[in-house]
């Protein structure tokens, strides 16, 4: 592999990794945090990709009219990416019916899966929509009029933009998850009927999560189609959703860092590594075995380590006694409230006498800190 080819390969991996991380983050907030099992997740990414495609492409009479698709608005960057996120989010609205009060949990998941299959069949067989099974090609790269998309500089820039967007989405989702709103989402995940009876509008929460996750998935699709310049139904079958679920489960459902790790390990790492397996058996055997391996990975993790590699962290309040061996101690005469906790709550210098034995509350209610810190204890 030549130098330029190696750089291109690395950039491609990074872009794919960023796109997969975005998609897994979208699924992480839906499934890992809010408990909405969206087996139709891939159609939101596909919708974003198609939206970005037809928003950035000229009318379908261009290029000899060999393609047939709607819109063709020839919009400049970044409108196609914004449009991708908006379309991904808006697509969630009709699916509210599937995750509403009448259809919940596993039934809603199956409903979404069927919707994904139907959407794929529709796009494949109705050519005027997005050029049928052949899909869209010659999708313009962002800013291709100003820069050369084939240049290394452009590709590094593209890569940087993807990683930056993934980091921004991670930051926003982290902010959501570690707030009272995130706590409500996790409560809904654990028991939606009880959350409802405590004044939480479960339908609205589910809709919000479908829209948010859909917008993130749509954005990831828009970014991907701008990089690979084509998009076809064969690339977003329902099985692709399984890969994303595998990533989130293996990385650690409910932990956004786990979702990113899963994106690196499964869609990127695992599938990429299997490309280097020497060919054997009949043609198509290795790709088929990839799917078998993905399935076995999911089963294995659900069986042996359901919390994933990076489990969801317990949110402990530093004003109270911690469960297990890590117990906080109060420092008499000190304004510092906690002596021994997680890495962020380091023990200050100086003498640290133990006040009372374990199992004793550390602080009066008026002195309880409102800050939650994830400790190193793992979720069950």
């Amino acid at each position, binding site marked *: 592999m030549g130098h330029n080819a190696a750089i291109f390969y690395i950039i491609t991996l990074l872009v794919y990794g960023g796109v997969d991380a975005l998609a897994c983050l979208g699924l992480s907030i839906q499934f890992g945090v809010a408990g909405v099992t969206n087996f139709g997740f891939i159609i939101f990414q596909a919708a974003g990709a198609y939206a970005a495609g037809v928003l950035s492409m000229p009318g379908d009479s261009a290029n000899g009219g060999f393609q047939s698709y709607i819109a063709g608005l020839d919009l400049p960057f970044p409108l196609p990416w914004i449009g991708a996120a908006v379309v991904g989010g808006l697509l969630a609205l009709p699916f509210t019916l599937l995750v509403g009060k009448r259809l919940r949990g596993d039934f809603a998941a199956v409903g979404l899966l069927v919707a994904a299959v139907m959407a794929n069949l529709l796009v494949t067989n109705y050519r005027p929509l997005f050029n049928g099974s052949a899909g869209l090609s010659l999708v313009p790269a962002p800013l291709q009029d100003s820069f050369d998309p084939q240049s290394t500089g452009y590709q590094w820039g593209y890569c940087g933009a993807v990683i930056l967007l993934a980091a921004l989405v991670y930051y926003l989702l982290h*902010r*959501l998850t570690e*707030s*009272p709103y995130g706590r409500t989402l996790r409560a809904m995940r654990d028991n939606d009927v009880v959350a*409802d*009876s405590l004044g939480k509008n479960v339908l609205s929460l589910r809709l919000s999560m479908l829209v948010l996750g859909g917008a993130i998935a749509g954005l990831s699709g828009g970014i991907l189609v701008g990089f690979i310049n084509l998009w076809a139904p064969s690339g977003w079958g329902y099985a692709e959703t399984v890969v994303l679920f595998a990533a989130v489960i293996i990385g650690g459902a409910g932990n956004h860092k786990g979702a990113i790790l899963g994106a690196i390990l499964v869609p990127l790492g695992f599938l990429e590594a299997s490309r280097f397996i020497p060919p054997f058996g009949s043609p198509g055997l290795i790709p088929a075995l990839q799917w078998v391996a993905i399935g076995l990975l999911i089963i294995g993790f659900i069986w042996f380590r359901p919390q994933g590699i990076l489990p969801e962290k317990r949110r402990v309040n530093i004003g*109270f006694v911690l469960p297990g061996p890590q117990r906080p101690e109060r420092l008499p005469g000190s304004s510092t409230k906690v002596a021994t906790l997680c890495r962020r709550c380091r023990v200050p210098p100086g003498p640290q006498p133990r006040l009372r034995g374990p199992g004793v*509350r550390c602080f009066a209610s008026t002195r*309880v800190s409102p800050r939650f810190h994830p400790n190193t204890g793992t979720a069950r």
Partner: protein
Amino acid sequence: MLEAVELTRHFNGVPAVAGVSFPLVNGRLTGLIGPNGAGKSTTLAMLAGTLPVSSGSIRYLGQDITAMPAYKRARRGLVRTFQLASEFKRLTVLENLLSAVPSQPGDSMRGALLGRRYWSAGEEQAIAEATTMLERFDLTKYANHYAGDLSGGQRRLVEIMRALMAAPTVLLLDEPMAGVHPHLAREIGHQLVALCEEGMTILMVEHELSIMDEFCDPVVVMAEGAVLAQGTMGELRNRSEVVEAYLVG
């Protein structure tokens, strides 16, 4: 305060509750007893909005709330607990309590995105309330434990505390003493009476008659989906139909 008027509920044509009517007395701990299958939990679920009614109506604070969804009833102070322990298993005890606090600034997507500075004051106040509640029920040392890791009785307490954190005007308790140590059950009973003296109205489904004897007044007896009798436990013990249907049945 809260009144059930001719409530009925059918499951595939089979009546579970048939024409139940009773008002809840303000500031009192009302008991609801009856044999298994009498329709107590179904009635409570209809009052809370968890189950829709087949017919009849529910009035709360002078308003017909029959068609109002459960979450809106809870926001207006009509809060329930469940027959089976229903803690949020993967939330800590403290988080369980905080999850019920109404109108928190950070409990919306906008509020959450505005950041900790926007909602930390409200959160601190909620934690202070939760701390008081944990002290009241002597569960402070379990604040950072996952609720799913607690014993059955402790989980019951978490559920009751959580319902109280929702600032209810009317509290509907479905067998809150089930699985709780008798000594602790009496402690809970005293706490509930104290809450009623502070102005809360409580309806409690319970099987333990000694609890009813000691804490509930009045008591509503249901049998076969209908209200059989109402009164104090002393009065009910003298009613032959009650004795026949439940007390010795």
